[in-house]
């Protein structure tokens, strides 16, 4: 389990925007997103979450659909 970071994804937002799921997978430098089983969906790779570099690229890609939370704040 991740101790330091939580990544919240609003699935409805992601699934409504074509290509957004792929974009998230592509922008994250530490592979926290992977393509989900449903079309246009993403899943979180729990093992990688503590590696989050807080680069904000996922939130820039989808300001409404993704939120990265620091559990130490």
């Amino acid at each position, binding site marked *: 389990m991740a101790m330091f970071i939580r990544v919240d994804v609003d699935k409805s937002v992601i699934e409504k925007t074509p290509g957004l799921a792929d974009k998230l997978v592509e922008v994250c*430098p530490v592979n926290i997103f992977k393509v989900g089983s449903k079309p246009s969906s993403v899943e979180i790779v729990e093992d990688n979450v503590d590696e989050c570099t807080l680069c904000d*690229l996922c939130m820039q890609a989808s300001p409404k659909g993704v939120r990265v939370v620091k559990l130490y704040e």
Partner: protein
Amino acid sequence: MAVIVHEDFQFIVQGITGREALNFTRECLEYGSKIIGGVTPGKGGREVYGVPVYDTVREITDTQRVDGTVITVPLAFAPDAAYEAIDAGIKEIIIITEGIPRKDASAVVEYAALHGARVIGPNCLGIIVPDVCRFGSLGGPAVDCRKAFKPGVVGVMSRSGGMTTEICNALTLSGLGVSTAISIGGDPVIGSTYADLIPLFEADKDTKAVVVYSEPGGTAEAELARWTQEHKSRLPIVAFVAGRFMDEMPGMSFGHAGTVVNKKVDSPADKMRRMREAGISVAEEIGDIPNLVRERIGN
């Protein structure tokens, strides 16, 4: 004034979409540097933090003035990236990539020299002129960078990127500040040595003293000692030599690739002796550096 870079200096980042390059591209932009493009083959047409990404260097140099490049591509592609930059006419080249065999480093540096280009590194972090320009990944995030590097009178050259920031931080805390700081790289063959760069500090009117950080291995300190004696340098120099514990462990290598001690001139003890003979003050502890600088510049 400043060394190598200036207010208007504009550069590119080769390998801009990598994990490290993303980090420092954002940091440089926040610091105010002018990054006018990035290169990653196959990723042309994208953008990172507002910087356009291209497939080739020439796409940028064909239409804009490019003063420098920061190379952070993976090891196997680093020499090629440097040749591409040199052939595109770029004159100031920082190579951050670590682990480039010295044969390749030597070839790149020779090619650069033939084309009037200068290489800093490999295995370095680049250059900062506080509040003027940051060229490379030295200093970390802009907020931290501003804390560690305040404008001032001391030029810094260091074989270790991390220790460049450490020393500049100490100089800043002491109120002396930094004129230009250069992380020159820790490999056995680097493009610009202390002796290559000291004339630039000599000519920089903002610089009143120079601090060098050195490590076991290589002959760069002996070369610097010789230069200062031959040129009757106006600049007081304060040096610190790390890795003295290695004197007890011949043949072992710690720290950077250039640190194996196998020749007499290499050992920390010899380096300190040579530099002292040339009138360079050698700090016993890293924390003594600011006071030694003060003593030497009479301030």
